């Protein structure tokens, strides 16, 4: 830019010649220069502002676009790393003691409808009813045409059904994935497992919640996603459980019983190898809660049912009396009947003469003899002993049903109560309680806590009776099978010992039924070194092969228990004791 002089000489001279003030020219030029300068600066500033405006516009536009994008997209966390293996929202499996599956999961689909998306509602309804005959066409159509925007049609459908629904081709019929609990063995161990159902439900997934049994007890652990890969191992043995269930079901039918229960337990560790309650149910299709109480198939007779267990309790009175040094197996005790105590009379099933030894009282199951032993012990000591055997509190078996099953402990422990409890009346407990107490008596006197979990290591329980008393009791109970009330319990090769118990069922209107009993056989084998305890209970059995129906445990529960031992013991890996030279040839057989 050329800089113009403020006082151009030509004009100054010109002005001087005319007599004008030359300063005016200078001022005029200065003004023009300032104006020029101002215009230039303004243009520059405007240009800058424009550039700035463009920048701001770009900035705002970008922020705006980003905000719009964020608002309209699924939120995702920015990350520099990926999570390790995607965790399936799965419930952990349940396996038996040898790792065979008892409960697992299967992915299926649920079917739902969104009526606003549907095209031909009438046809869809008609086709759906063809696939699912239990649906009601009119109701479906009413729901489709109603105001609802969403409705469940089926909670669980099979892949074939899903394909069939696909073939209808209606865009308003949609599927959500569903995790389903599957019990591949059907009814096997149904009461132990309990069953599962859906909890909170969404379109994408549903919570699987344990309803009963171990599924409920370990619900939190089974649902823990961190532990989904490690299965819950139970102490149940699938093969043994199947064999016991089959034999017991056959026995129940043969003895015309209303229900039956069996508990097979390791005598030392308390691990329950088999726990059966009949009638049973299919946990895949749990029956609706129509029947209540002990009539319902879900009712676990082995765990929930507390019954008076009858003469099986005599063993406890005898064991305590021997432990306290009051009697020895050979001590004679008066059994002259009927025994009068106040206004009560105690009778025996048949008359045993004036006196019996303690051993014979157990072998022949004398109520009077046991009542006398209970009197010798006194109420206080008897209570302490039964409490130590676990009859005062629910068992700690890992099932909600077991923890709710509290034995019925007599309120006031008078002498007559002491006597009746001695032979098993007046105190009700479950078959599991009985199995635990028998385990304690025969395993050398160490307290047994029944459990459904495999115990890798276990601490020996407190000593309830001495090893010596335990040995005497084992021999006594072996005699019961050899020459006493449980003679049908003999299984060649396995020295079975045990005690029968036949208790009249209490009538809810008061008193006892004459013709309804609970027959129990509590047994253990092999007798000299007991490994397993088996308790079999039949509810209202009646053996009708004779002239009169026979209901005593010796005729009903004992043969069933013997058959269970015959079938289960080889499966448990117990080799029978073979007498020398009994068998000559060996046939090839495999398990």
């Amino acid at each position, binding site marked *: 830019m050329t800089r113009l002089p403020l006082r151009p000489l030509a004009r100054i001279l010109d002005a001087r010649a005319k007599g004008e003030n030359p300063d005016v020219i200078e001022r005029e030029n200065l003004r023009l220069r300032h104006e020029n300068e101002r215009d230039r600066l303004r243009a520059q500033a405007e240009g800058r502002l424009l550039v700035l405006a463009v920048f701001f516009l770009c900035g705002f536009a970008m922020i705006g676009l980003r905000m719009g994008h964020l608002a309209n997209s699924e939120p995702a966390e920015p990350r520099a790393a990926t999570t390790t293996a995607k965790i399936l929202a799965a419930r952990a499996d349940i396996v038996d003691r040898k790792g065979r*599956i008892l409960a697992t999961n299967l992915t299926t689909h649920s079917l739902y409808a969104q009526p606003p998306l549907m095209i031909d509602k009438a046809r869809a309804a008609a086709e759906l009813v063809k696939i699912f005959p239990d649906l009601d066409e009119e109701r479906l159509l009413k729901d489709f045409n109603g105001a609802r925007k969403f409705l469940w049609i089926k909670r669980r459908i099979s892949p074939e059904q899903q394909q069939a629904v696909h073939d209808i081709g209606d865009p308003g019929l949609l599927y959500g994935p569903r995790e389903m609990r599957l019990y591949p063995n059907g009814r096997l161990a149904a009461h132990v497992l309990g069953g599962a159902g859906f909890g909170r439900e969404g379109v994408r997934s549903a919570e699987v919640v344990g309803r009963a049994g171990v599924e409920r007890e370990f619900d939190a652990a089974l649902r823990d996603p961190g532990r989904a890969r490690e299965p819950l191992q139970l102490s149940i043995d699938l093969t043994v459980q199947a064999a016991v269930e089959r034999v017991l079901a056959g026995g129940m039918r043969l003895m015309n019983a209303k229900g039956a229960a069996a508990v097979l337990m390791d005598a030392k560790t308390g691990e329950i190898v088999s726990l059966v309650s009949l009638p049973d149910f299919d946990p895949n299709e749990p029956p609706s809660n129509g029947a209540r109480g002990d009539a319902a198939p879900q009712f676990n007779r082995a765990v929930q049912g507390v019954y008076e267990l009858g003469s099986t309790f005599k063993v406890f009175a005898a064991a305590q009396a021997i432990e306290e040094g009051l009697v020895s197996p050979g001590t004679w005790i008066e059994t002259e009947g009927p025994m009068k105590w106040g206004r009560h009379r105690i009778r025996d099933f048949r008359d045993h003469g004036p006196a019996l030894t303690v051993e014979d009282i157990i072998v022949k199951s004398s109520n009077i003899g046991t009542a006398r032993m209970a009197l010798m012990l006194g109420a206080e000591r008897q209570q302490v002993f039964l409490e130590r055997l676990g009859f005062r509190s629910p068992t700690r078996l890992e099932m909600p049903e077991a923890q709710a099953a509290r034995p019925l402990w007599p309120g006031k422990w008078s002498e007559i109560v002491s006597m009746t409890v001695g032979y098993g009346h007046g105190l009700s407990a479950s078959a599991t309680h009985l199995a635990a107490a028998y385990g304690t008596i025969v395993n050398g006197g160490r307290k047994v806590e029944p459990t459904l979990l495999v115990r890798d290591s276990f601490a020996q329980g407190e000593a309830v009776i001495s090893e010596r008393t335990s040995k005497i009791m084992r021999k006594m109970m072996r005699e019961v099978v050899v020459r006493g009330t449980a003679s049908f319990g003999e299984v060649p090769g396995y020295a079975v010992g045990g005690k029968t118990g036949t208790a009249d069922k209490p009538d809810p209107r008061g008193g006892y039924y004459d013709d309804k009993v609970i027959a129990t056989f509590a047994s253990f084998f092999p007798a000299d070194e007991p490994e397993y305890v088996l308790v079999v209970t039949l509810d209202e059995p009646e053996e009708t092969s004779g002239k009169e129906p026979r209901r005593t445990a010796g005729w009903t529960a004992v043969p069933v228990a013997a058959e269970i031992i015959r079938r289960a013991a080889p499966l448990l890996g117990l080799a029978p004791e073979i007498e020398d030279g009994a068998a000559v040839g060996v046939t090839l057989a495999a398990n």
Partner: protein
Amino acid sequence: MRAFFYVTSLLAVMGLAIWAYRENYRTQEAIREVEATSAEIASLRETLNVLKAEWSYLNRPERLRELADMNFDRLGLLPLRPDHFGRIDQVSFPPPDRLPITRAWDVVGEKPAEETE
């Protein structure tokens, strides 16, 4: 000198930027790969689960019992009973194996010299 310093730092910045850019994309790629693999693992696990469930369904004791009953003629399977156990000394020794040579052969050779003392 100053110009050289500016140019080298500019080049260094550009180089680092290119490196970071490429690393970023490689990381993204690796993440995608890991995700695809873990999705595959999940689906394989699911398949495995289904197969396990099917296996235990096919091996349920009830079905095996029925199959054993149906095929009794061919297999003769019975429940294991106590009298199926035997002792080891009840099993007779198997007869000694015969020599693998069953017919006569002409043998050509020298008769070994009798040992002398």
